[in-house]
């Protein structure tokens, strides 16, 4: 019995000294950034950009590796870092919230330590350039008249930010989104192809997917989900300008495992806030049509709570006729 108590004491002391030294000498080993998707996607790109910038600017005194853990809409990668320590980070996005709300995952942002929101993309609502709908109002009125008269293209799945931003928009016009025909395509590219091919009347997708087509005069972007007009697309109004109270970022962030110490959180706050100030980061964002959306750990936590509330309202029920 005495031996067991002694052992517990030793373990306890060891645990104390471990966490203490962890705070002082962090990082003590290689840092791993998990991209919860296959190489080549947005998450992968974000992970590799963060890796490159932290290394190039000598911000972190340790090797940084990027690990791809695709599957389950991010679930596999996120599950992976849940049991790791503060050396293992993962890229996230709004899927962390919607996966849970739509019943595909048990994980929520509360199961992790949010470290930063890094950047965002915006959603665009686009119609063919020869469409009869010249403005958002035209389109919405048509939906109000007959929800099934215009087919909407989304991709790659229902419940993503593109889809949700549109659901929010039609609901503002008192249209039951349940009556709208959503055609689900495999990806952003297919959505645009369908739009150009006349298979759908309108698409909701990332701005980057339709920006070039808009500039080339093939499609018309009716509204954009940002707060202010976007550089290079000064002719495109925001939802807010069109009278709808919608700002819908498609954000990306980075998070760590649960129960990180305050020292560890402070460390990453410092490093990541320095990283987003570099010119290289500005360049990465410009190249990908991202926008600076940096929030530190505590701001991100608050932001995620707000977002969860917003998504909950959108997802849970039609909110109409009640």
């Amino acid at each position, binding site marked *: 019995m005495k031996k067991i108590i002694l052992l517990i004491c030793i373990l306890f002391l060891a645990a104390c000294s471990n966490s203490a030294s962890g705070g002082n000498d962090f990082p003590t080993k290689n840092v791993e950034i998990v991209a919860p998707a296959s190489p080549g996607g947005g998450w992968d790109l974000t992970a590799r950009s963060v890796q490159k910038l932290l290394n190039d600017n000598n911000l972190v005194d340790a090797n940084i590796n990027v690990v791809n853990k695709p599957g389950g809409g991010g679930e596999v990668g996120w599950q992976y870092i849940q049991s790791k320590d503060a050396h293992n980070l993962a890229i996230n996005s709004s899927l962390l919230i919607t996966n849970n709300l*739509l019943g595909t995952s048990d994980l929520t942002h509360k199961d992790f330590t949010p470290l930063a929101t890094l950047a965002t993309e915006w959603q665009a609502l686009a119609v063919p350039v020869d469409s009869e709908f010249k403005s958002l109002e035209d389109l919405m009125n048509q939906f109000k008249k007959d929800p099934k008269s215009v087919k909407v293209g989304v991709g790659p799945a229902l419940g993503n930010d593109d889809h949700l931003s549109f659901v929010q928009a039609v609901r503002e016009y008192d249209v039951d989104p*349940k*009556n709208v025909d959503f055609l689900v395509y495999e990806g952003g590219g297919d959505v645009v192809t369908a739009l150009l091919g006349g*298979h759908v009347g309108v698409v909701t997708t990332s701005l980057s997917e339709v920006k070039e087509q808009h500039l080339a005069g093939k499609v018309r972007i009716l509204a954009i989900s940002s707060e202010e007009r976007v550089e290079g697309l000064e002719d495109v109004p925001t939802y807010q300008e069109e009278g709808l109270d919608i700002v819908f970022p498609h954000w990306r962030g980075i998070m760590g495992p649960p129960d990180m110490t305050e020292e560890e959180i402070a460390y990453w706050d410092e490093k990541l806030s320095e990283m987003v100030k570099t010119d290289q980061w500005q360049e990465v964002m410009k190249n990908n049509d991202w926008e600076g959306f940096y929030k530190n750990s505590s701001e991100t936590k608050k932001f995620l709570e707000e977002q969860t509330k917003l998504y909950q309202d959108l997802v*849970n*029920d039609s909110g109409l006729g009640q």
Partner: protein
Amino acid sequence: MLRKLKETIEQGLHVSMQTKILGLIISLLVFIIALISTIFGIMELREEIEKAENSAEQTAKTLSYMPVIQDYATAIERDTKPKLKGIADQVREEINATGIMIEDRNGLIFHNVSTSIVSQLSKSDETYQAIMFGSAYTKMLGEGEEELLLGIAPIYVDYGSYIKVEGAISVIFQMKEIKADIITDIRNILIISLIVLAGGCFGGVMLARSIRKDTFGLEPAEIAALYKERGAILQSVKEGILAIDSNDQITMLNMSAKQMLSIDLYKKGIPLDAVFSSNNVIELLTSAHENHDVELEFNGKTIILNSQPIIDGNKKVGTVASFRDKTEIKDMVNTLSEVKRYSDDLRAQTHEFSNKLYVLLGLIELGRLDEAISFIKQEVEIQEFNTDIIFNQIEDEKIQAILLGKLAKASESRVSLTIDTNSSLSPLPEYYGLHPLLIILSNLIDNGFEAVSHVNNGEVTFFVTDIGKDIIFEVADNGGGIDQDKLPMLFQKGVSEKGKQRGYGLSNVKDEVEQLGGTIEIETSVDSGTVFTVSLPKNQK
């Protein structure tokens, strides 16, 4: 309140062993059964719900891809309703679901559940997420009897280049049915538990009986009382009692044994050789045979030992031994023999007087009065002579008494006991008790009587003086003396010329003389007889 509780507890302590055992078994079993049933119930409920959730969701997903259902949902083919109903009923059979419901974007298009469930579900829009966002999930809704578990999946229809959610399918379970299954399982467990409980009670009764058989039908409380009683008996006995076990460790020792064997620090289980140093004693105590009245020297005491081995089957499992202090027995024997001697002496005196009275009667009847008168005078003279010396010169009353007794015995035995006229004795100090003096003088004088009993004109002479530091007694006889070769053994026990069961006299005399710190000497010859001289110190050291 407290007192009442206390009373209850005290009464509780006196219940029979069987009640105790049964009470314990029943309460333990009931507790365990309740615990297990509860845990089982909770686990089973969780497991069943999880199982139902999984199968509801999986079934909903699977069904959503079936062409029949897809065609039905897209309204391509609604003539297939009977076929659909077949499938729906099959689902109900195979996974024990209550039924399924299919909705398209406009509302319910098919179901095989009761209308009450349909109306219950129509109040809320549970399929919204499936139809709107294409997600599959489970939902619990309602309460109590109406509690439902739904597995909902979107009906995705693949149109080649794109897919579209055309509706949703719900697989419905009624919680009351799941719970009913669990209640049946728990009831089965309880039935088995009751059998176990009955078995436990039976076992308890058997155990109690078996224990009572081993304890000769005595309750533990009675055994405890007997045990205490035994302890009290053993402690109150004057004999020393000691018990050892098969490992030669002392298991019991009473107070008398402790005193007799001078054991101060007794602890149960100490080995025999820690108490006794003599191998002889240990051998006696550990022998497999009984020992009767064995005399032992232990710490300067003479002890009489009896031992009885305890035999279980063919094996010795222990020994019980008892001890008596020999000195005490000896004192008792001595006291008895003195009493006997006193009464003998008194009887002798009575006999002597009646003899003399017969002589006088005879002389008077014959008319020889002169002779009678001279006989009386002669007797009076002898009496006066002896008593004069006894009462005038020997002032110690104890010695007076002894000598008067011996004079009577001499007169009866027809031997002559003469008190030397030179005898003189002041009262003896207090510490000279009657008992040792009686043993010394009585034995020596009686021995003298016996020595002269076959001699003509046999005479025993007694002399005492306390002039000087010592008191000197001298008993002389004119008998045949003692053989030289018997002299060395004269004072040993059991050496006597008077046959068996004799020979303790001189040995006792010697013991008593030595106890008083005196010496005894003997002078003997065939011609002049034997003289015993005892000298005792006046002042005890």
